[in-house]
Every structure is written in structure tokens, then in C-alpha cells.
């Protein structure tokens, strides 16, 4: 089974957690990214994720392999949405199971940090005033590309 998947349907955390249940691992840390109702002061009503799946999956599997290598963890799994999302929808889920919680926290943060900066995924926000714009990367200069 791949350690990262791109989905065009709603992510279900309880189903996702099942990927990670392991009777040797007592600690489980997960990260969920929810669609917020604002970004840089603008009211967001919905958004779309565009994903280039072949490289998103290969790069995501690489990130998880790095996490397995760097931290004492048992299992890790990630799913990311593509397509149209509404406010409050789950955009990304990362789960890590480990015997001890310290490495589980560290690995989960490592994975989401790298997923956000390395996977070919783009987010277009639609604003309350009718505008839309592609969201800039974390760490890039803080200017978006708003289009009418």
C-alpha cells in the first residue's frame, strides 16, 4: 500500500486511522488541515486544490520514507484532497503511530511541513467578493495572484 494518496472525495479520519493501528504502537499523532474562512484578511467561501498526482504521490512517499528513517516511528500515512472544497472540509490528513510519543510528534510535523512545501499542489481560493486567487507558497513573498 502506498503511504500517501490524493483523493477527490471527503477524507474520513476514522477510516484513515485504521491504516495505522498497530498493537506495538501506543502513541498516535495526527494533523488535520481544515479549510479556513479567511486568508490574509480576505473572507474565503470555498477553494480548489489542483494536484499533479504522479509526482505528488512519488514525492509524498519519499517524504514518508525520510520520516520513517529519521524518527523512531512504526507507521505513517498521509492523504491530500484535490478538487473543490467547502469551508471546514478536511484538506490534508497526516497520521503517525509510534511506541513513544516524542518521535510521533516530530515525524508528523516533519511530514506536514514537507508535504506543504514539496508536493505539486496548488490552492485557488474563492473570496466572498467574487474574486479568486492562487495562494502563494509558505515562505514565499507574501503576495497572492488575485484575479477578478
Amino acid at each position, binding site marked *: 500500500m502506498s503511504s500517501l494518496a490524493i483523493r477527490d472525495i471527503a477524507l474520513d479520519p476514522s477510516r484513515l486511522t485504521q491504516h495505522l493501528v498497530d498493537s506495538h504502537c501506543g502513541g498516535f499523532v495526527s494533523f488535520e488541515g481544515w479549510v479556513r474562512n479567511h486568508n490574509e484578511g480576505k473572507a474565503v467561501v470555498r477553494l480548489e*486544490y489542483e494536484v*499533479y498526482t504522479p509526482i505528488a504521490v512519488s514525492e509524498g512517499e519519499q517524504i514518508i520514507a525520510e520520516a520513517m528513517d529519521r524518527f523512531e516511528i512504526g507507521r505513517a500515512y498521509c492523504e491530500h484532497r484535490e478538487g473543490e472544497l467547502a469551508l471546514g472540509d478536511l484538506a490534508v490528513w497526516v497520521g503517525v503511530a509510534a511506541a513513544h510519543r516524542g518521535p510521533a510528534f516530530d515525524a508528523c510535523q516533519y511530514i506536514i511541513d514537507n*508535504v506543504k512545501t514539496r508536493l505539486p499542489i*496548488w490552492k485557488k481560493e474563492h473570496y466572498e467578493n467574487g474574486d479568486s486567487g492562487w495562494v502563494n507558497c509558505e515562505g514565499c513573498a507574501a503576495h497572492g495572484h488575485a*484575479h477578478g
Partner: protein
Amino acid sequence: MTEKNLTVRYFAYFRDLAGTSEERVALVAATTGDLFDALRERLSFDEPRQHCKVAVNDVLTDWQHSLADGDTVLLFPPVAGG
């Protein structure tokens, strides 16, 4: 240097600028970096290389990658997953 025939695929913001998701270009471009610079001028975008990514034939690579005739180059604007 002779021209190379390349397929360039655009995503997200770059696709909006290019007005197409894919095009054939014939270019005297030695590397992915050269191609980036040529397209940056033609499409008039501000992003520096270090905020963008590039893949050749579906494999992520860097801006020093030597291009070959027939390569498919994927041009990724700044990513924003999560």
C-alpha cells in the same frame, strides 16, 4: 547550439498566464534553468527559480538539468498544499 523540441506543461498560476496547459516549444535551451528564464520573460511572471519547481519526464529535478530533444518539462509555480 541547435534548437530542441520540448513539450512544456503548465500548472495552476502558470497555466493561467500561458493560457494553455501544454505547448510544444522549439528552443535553444541547454538546461531547465535556461527554459525557465525564457518562459519567465515571455509569460512575464515575477517568481524566482527558487520558489518554483521543475520536473523532466515526470521526475523532479533542478535548474541545472540538461534538456534533451523530445523532453517533457513540467513547470510548477509556487506550491501551496495543506
